[in-house]
């Protein structure tokens, strides 16, 4: 069919194998690129500070220096003292630990409920799905503060684990709705059909396909719910229906603010406020990054 008659050096047939440059594999995108470094560093510092608060506290956070009430920041007390004479620097770290734990525990509880409920609703038949979703809508239509107050009253005792459970079980609805929508979408995807056809059981499909795929879309919501749990606790404590003043959290520190306003001691409000806001901003920033990176990965196709 084809004949090679003459061969000249530059015009020699070398075929597909020949390549002058050894093309190395495409360099992977650097992992660090685009990560909000500042937010991560600040958040990590705050978390470490809170976790190892014993090492940096200068005073016992619950000890009241009755002769040093409402001290402005200065040499004895770095951030001053509050209206009960407690050292704010120590309270920030000690209370921050509780606040972060409340945020995390509440998020774990709400995400767990959301994933289970959302998946069940997503794979259920039309009627069950309808009932389950209408139920979440009813819950969503009740102001969550009202729910929390109600549950607080029902539980009676106020401690910080109790409040995280309450926040957790009143904030799972919107994540559950997203999980349910994703599951509905994914379960009719071709790869799920093929997996079922190959004999994959419900559990196999759930853990191999559904969970990894909806995780990416609720990651942002989960990170954000850490934030909103901290906010809820602070709000409740500020309103006086959360934790009592003896239990130190950022929220309960802020609850002293009305008294502080009378004496114009700004540091009592501002310092825990700044810590709270900075932490929330960092979490939001990281959450946005997570959302963006998942979107761009999917946008690759």
């Amino acid at each position: 069919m084809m004949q090679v008659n003459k061969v000249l050096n530059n015009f020699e047939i070398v075929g597909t194998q020949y390549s002058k440059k050894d093309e190395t594999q495409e360099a992977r995108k650097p992992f660090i690129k685009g990560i909000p470094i500042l937010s991560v560093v600040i958040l990590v510092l705050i978390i470490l500070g809170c976790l190892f608060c014993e090492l940096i506290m200068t005073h016992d956070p619950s000890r009241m220096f009755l002769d040093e009430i409402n001290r402005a920041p200065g040499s004895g007390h770095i951030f001053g003292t509050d209206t009960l004479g407690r050292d704010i620097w120590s309270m920030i770290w000690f209370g921050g630990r509780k606040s972060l734990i409340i945020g995390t525990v509440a998020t774990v509880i709400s995400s767990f409920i959301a994933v289970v409920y959302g998946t069940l609703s997503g794979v259920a038949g039309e009627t069950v799905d309808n009932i389950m979703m209408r139920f979440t809508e009813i819950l969503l239509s009740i102001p969550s503060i009202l729910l929390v107050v109600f549950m607080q009253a029902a539980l009676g005792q106020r401690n910080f684990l109790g409040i995280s459970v309450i926040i957790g079980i009143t904030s799972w609805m919107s994540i559950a709705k997203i999980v349910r929508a994703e599951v509905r979408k994914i379960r009719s995807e071709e790869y799920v059909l093929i997996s079922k056809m190959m004999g994959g059981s419900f559990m196999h499909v759930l853990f191999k396909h559904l969970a990894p795929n909806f995780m990416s879309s609720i990651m942002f919501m989960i990170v954000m719910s850490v934030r909103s749990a901290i906010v809820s606790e602070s709000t409740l404590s500020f309103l006086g229906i959360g934790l009592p003043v003896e239990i130190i959290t950022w929220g309960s520190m802020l609850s002293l603010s009305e008294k502080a306003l009378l004496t114009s001691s700004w540091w009592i409000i501002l310092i825990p406020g700044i810590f709270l806001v900075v932490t929330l901003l960092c979490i939001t920033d990281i959450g946005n990054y997570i959302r963006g990176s998942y979107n761009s990965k999917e946008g690759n196709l």
Partner: protein
Amino acid sequence: MLRIGLLSNILEVKNLSVVFNTPEGRISAIRDLSLSIGQGEVFAVVGESGCGKSVLCKTIMGILPSNTEITSGNIAVNGKEIVGLSDGEMCRVRGVDISMVFQDPMTSLDPTYSIGAQIAEAVRVHDKKITADALKKKVIDLMDAVGIDRAVERYSSFPWMLSGGMRQRCVMAMALAQEPKLLIADEPTTALDVTVQAEILDLLKEIRNKTGMTILFITHDLGVVAKVADKVAIMYAGKIIEQGLCEEIFARPTHPYTWGLLHALPSFAENGRLYPIPGAPPVLKEGFEGDAFAERNPYALRIDYAQEPPFFDLSPTHKAATWLLDERAPKIQFSLTNTAPPKTAHDIKQTEKLMEIHDLTHYFRLGQNSYVKAVSHVSFDIYKGEVFALVGESGSGKSTLARCILGMYKPLGGKAFYDGIDITSKRRTRKDKARISKEIQFISQDSGAALDMKMTVRDIIAEPLEIHRVYKNRKAADERIKEIMKKVGLDEQLMQRRPSELSGGQRQRVNIARAYVMNPMLLVADEPLSSLDVSIQAQIVEVLSELKKDHETAMLFIAHDLSMVEFISDRVGVMYKGHLVELAPTKELFRNPVHSYTKALLSAAPKPDPEVEKTRVSTRYKKSLTEFMHEGWEEVAEGHFVLKEH
């Protein structure tokens, strides 16, 4: 062939270069491209996806996305320079001088307006003073001109009421509203069925003959090119690499890439083998040196890797950019033997039935008392080790049938037995279920959607092994996965990659590997080729026929592309609107089609040979369902069955 070359050039593109700005760097989409199209010509640009042919259209229309940049060159339409025009100025060129027909007629029409209103909009944009009566008359004239019958009634129809072919006619009516000098048709028939494609192509030619309009026709299908084009340019990696009259390109292809494209077609297969082009088209960074095709070119010269070949003239109209034409290069003769339908490689012992389908019927419910008969009363058998092809246009029920066989749908009537097990029955034992899910595997049309984007290639292929706990440890499974990856032509290094990092062809190979890793008895392949390029299609067909040789796997191959069916299958069933109308051994069917629908289908498929195409008349088939129901079967030859017609 009417008024070619009589007048000046309508489109003149000189040294055009377009660059994409991407996060990975600047990518060349079009490199130093020049072409000129004379009045009344049909100029076809052919290439695989990613070769820059759509970018070329968009550049001419001035609708490039914002991350692109024209780095050099001129485009003159009807003597008017359009590079550098503002958007407002371009608006006066678009529609009047140039207009465009897009690939998918569904997405280019607005579902909330009637088609009459949409065509009227195209008229009114450039003629604001037109009266309502004149406007309506003009729209109806346009609809007549593009072959929409009952135009007055259809004036107020909405796009979703019309078939794909009718919609494409509407889009064409909109494009023709201002009688543009140049019509750009970007894959206008790719989304359509073969018989509809033939009608639209005939219409385009008819319009050209009547009005002398110039058409820039973009396609990947060489059969379509042979049917409509006067001149052809082959494009690869943003460059035209061969250009000439249609007859010249098919009679004397010169560039190795053109050889590759032609050789990848089933009509030019030799000894029952296809010759796919290895590899996939490259993505070129700006400033690339050498011939972009060299790495896929078995005849690449050393100089190809260093220096870009210039154009060598073969005749006043025919030129090609390859160093093989240089006088210092070795002379290579290339010939295409247009062989008769390839023989099917092995004989099937038609004794052992693997799958029996009896009177299978499945309706979809639309609303109360309204049904779509997706599959009605279909019966056939699949024998062990054979490739049974189901052919039909979209909506003929072939995918529904496949899904019934796979157990995704529960058919309303009829039975399907796999080796004696009733698939349609709910009361199957656990053992039978496990056996079926091991022995029947599936390859789907959309290679992307069938893969979980979150999993690695290894995990995807391992999934059936894990479900059925075939291997005790990971190492043994990995061995098997490597073996199957090698068989389907995937590099071992891809094991840890994710589907988003693979090309379309590689993804379909992963699908095939996942299906074959269990050594299935029956493989159901639902249009496994239709989302792929010609050269990639040939690669996949090669993989499938290699596997067919080594395994005893029977295959139900669903397709609308008749040429590939002819190549790969042993027996063919033709479906029309839910009915099986003809069933025959492949050779017999293509030699002697009996049912008039089969004849129409065969005559509509374009062949990559201009001599045949220029003279051929395709037959039409339009029949309602009821006309051939319950007429019974007739055996016209051994194993060749036809549904009786009036």
